C-alpha cells in the first residue's frame, strides 16, 4: 500500500462519526462514495471566488468560471485518456449519460430487426434505456449470461453478437457480483460485427485505471458521486466522429449554432450535448476528485481495495450460513461483495448491521434480471473503497455473526 491510510482518513471526516453509538463502518460505497475535504474545498472555492455562468460571459468571473469548467474537462480527459477534451461530455450522472446515448445514437441508428446486446448483470440504468429503445424500434434485446463462476459468459457473447447487432452495452464492473468484464475483448467482438460498444463505467472509474483508448470503447459513461466527486455530475465519453454525427439530446441555451423561428442548428461537440446551464461547480468538484485519486495513484487504489477483499472474502465464505454471489477469488473482484444469510431476508440483515454501525445495502441493487438469474429477490451488499480499513472488515464479520445469533435466538 503506497499511501498512508491515516492521512487518507483525515481527508474524510464523515467516516469518523459514530452511528447508533457504534463506530461507523461505511460499506455502501457502490451506492455512493464519500468525498474528501479537497473536493468540498474545491466546491466552496468555486462558489466563493469564481461563481458565474460559463462560456457566454465577457466579464472576469465568467471567464474564470469558464476556465475552471473547461479545466475540469481536460482533467477528466487525461484521467480516462480520451483523445480530446471535446470527447468528454458533462452530464448529470451515469444514468443521464446512458440515456443520452440510447436516445440520441440509438434513436438515430436502430431499426426494426436490429439487435442490441447487453448482459444479464446490467444495472437498470444500462438496461431499461436499451430495452425501451428496442421496444420502440421493434429491435431485439439479447442478453449475455453468466458462467457458473459468476462471470460474463464470453462464449455466449460470441454467439449473441452477430452482424445484426448494432449496439453492445455492457458494464465494466458489476455493482452486484464485483466482477470486472473484459470490455476490451467485447469491443473487438462488437467492432468485428460493425456494432458500437457502450461501456458502463459507474463501478470502474475511481476503482481501477481506465483508458478508453486502450479499451477502444465507443461510449463510456460514469458518475462523479461514485468516484469521490460531487453529486449531480457525470460524464459521457464518446468518440468524436460518433458524437459529431449524433443529433442533440436536449435543446436549450449554449448548445446551438443558430436559432430561427422554425429551425435551429447546433454547436460543435461537446457543447451540442450540454444544453442549459451546466453543473459548473460539480464539474470543478469532479476535477478535484480526479486530482485526489491521481494523487493516491489508481494502481495503489486498486491494490488497496483488493487487499481489503482478500482479507474479508474468505472469512465471509467460511461462514456456513453465508452465500456469496459472484467470483470467490479475490483477484477477480472489485470491492463489491453481494451475499445472503440463510433464512434471513437481507433487509433484516441490513437493519441489524446498521445497529452495529455497519452501513451496507440490501435489495435488488437495480439489477432485477440478475436477481432473477441468481434465484433470489434481494441480496445484502458490502462494498469497499480505498479508505476502508481492516477494522471495517472485522466489524462486518463480527456484526454478521451477531446478527445470525440474534435471529437464531429469536430475541436477545
Amino acid at each position, binding site marked *: 500500500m503506497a499511501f498512508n491510510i491515516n492521512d487518507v482518513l483525515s481527508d474524510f471526516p464523515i467516516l469518523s462519526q459514530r452511528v447508533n453509538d457504534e463506530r461507523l463502518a461505511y460499506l455502501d460505497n457502490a451506492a455512493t462514495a464519500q468525498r474528501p475535504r479537497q473536493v468540498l474545498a474545491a466546491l466552496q472555492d468555486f462558489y466563493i471566488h469564481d461563481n458565474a455562468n460559463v462560456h457566454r460571459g465577457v466579464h472576469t468571473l465568467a471567464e474564470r468560471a469558464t476556465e475552471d469548467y473547461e479545466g475540469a474537462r481536460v482533467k477528466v480527459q487525461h484521467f480516462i485518456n480520451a483523445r480530446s477534451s471535446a470527447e468528454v461530455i458533462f452530464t448529470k450522472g451515469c444514468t443521464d449519460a446512458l440515456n443520452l446515448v440510447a436516445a440520441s445514437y440509438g434513436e438515430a441508428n436502430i431499426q426494426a430487426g436490429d439487435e442490441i446486446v447487453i448482459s444479464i448483470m446490467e444495472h437498470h440504468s444500462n438496461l431499461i434505456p436499451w430495452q425501451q429503445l428496442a421496444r420502440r424500434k421493434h429491435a431485439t434485446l439479447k442478453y449475455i449470461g453468466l458462467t457458473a463462476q459468476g462471470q460474463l459468459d464470453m462464449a455466449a457473447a460470441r454467439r449473441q453478437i452477430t452482424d445484426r447487432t448494432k449496439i453492445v452495452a455492457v458494464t465494466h464492473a458489476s455493482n452486484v457480483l464485483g466482477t470486472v468484464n473484459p470490455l476490451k475483448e467485447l469491443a473487438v467482438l462488437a467492432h468485428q460485427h460493425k456494432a458500437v460498444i457502450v461501456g458502463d463505467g459507474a463501478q470502474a472509474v475511481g476503482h481501477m485505471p481506465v483508458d478508453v483508448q486502450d479499451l477502444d470503447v465507443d461510449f463510456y459513461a460514469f458518475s462523479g458521486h461514485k468516484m469521490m466527486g460531487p453529486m449531480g455530475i457525470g460524464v459521457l465519453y464518446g468518440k468524436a466522429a460518433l458524437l459529431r454525427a449524433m443529433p442533440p439530446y436536449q435543446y436549450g441555451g449554449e448548445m446551438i449554432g443558430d436559432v430561427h423561428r422554425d429551425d435551429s442548428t447546433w454547436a460543435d461537440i461537446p457543447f451540442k450535448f450540454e444544453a442549459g446551464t451546466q453543473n459548473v461547480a460539480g464539474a470543478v468538484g469532479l476535477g478535484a476528485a480526479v486530482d485526489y485519486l491521481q494523487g493516491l495513484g489508481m494502481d495503489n487504489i486498486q491494490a488497496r481495495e483488493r487487499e481489503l477483499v482478500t482479507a474479508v472474502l474468505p472469512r465471509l465464505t467460511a461462514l456456513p450460513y453465508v452465500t456469496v454471489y459472484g467470483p470467490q477469488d479475490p483477484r477477480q473482484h472489485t470491492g463489491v461483495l453481494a451475499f445472503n444469510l440463510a433464512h434471513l431476508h437481507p433487509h433484516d440483515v441490513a437493519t441489524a448491521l446498521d445497529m452495529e454501525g455497519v452501513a451496507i445495502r440490501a435489495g435488488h441493487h437495480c439489477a432485477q434480471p440478475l436477481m432473477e438469474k441468481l434465484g433470489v429477490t434481494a441480496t445484502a451488499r458490502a462494498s469497499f473503497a480505498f479508505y476502508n480499513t481492516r477494522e471495517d472488515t472485522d466489524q462486518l464479520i463480527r456484526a454478521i455473526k451477531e446478527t445470525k445469533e440474534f435471529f437464531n435466538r*429469536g430475541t436477545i
Partner: protein
Amino acid sequence: MGLSKLNGLYREVILDHASHPHNKGKLPTATNTMTLHNPTCGDTINLQVNVADHRIKDIAFTGEGCTISQASASMMTAAVKGKTTTAALAMAKTFSDMAIGQQHSRSDLDQLGDAQVLTSIMEFPARIKCATLAWWALQRALLKDSDEEDDNE
C-alpha cells in the same frame, strides 16, 4: 448500541408471525385482489379477499419479503378477517397514520390487535414501507374499481 435496540422491532410476536404466518396461501376464489411491490426492496404482497355483504369473509396472501413485511401481512389479515370493509379500511388508515407519526386514540389502536405492535417501526424509518405494504394492498384491493388493473404488474 449493538443489537439490543432490535428487540423493539423484532418482538417475539413479530418473529412468530413471520415464521408461522397466518392466512398465507391462495383463496380458491376472490372478489378483490391486489399485488403490490415495494420497489425500493422487492418485497411483494399478493392479496386475495373475499367480500360479501360488505364484510371480509376470507382473506389470504402470498408473497416474499423481509420479516417485517411478512409479519405485517400475517397480522393484517388476522386483524381484518370477519370485519366489515368499512372497519377494515379504518384500521388501514389508523396503521398508515401511525406509521407516519400521527396520533390515534387508544381504542383505534386496540382495534389493530397484534398489528399494533408493528407501530414500533417508527423508530426504524427505513423499514416503515415494509410494514405498511400489506395495509396499502388492503386499501387498494378494497377501494379499486373492479376494472382497474393490478398495480405494478
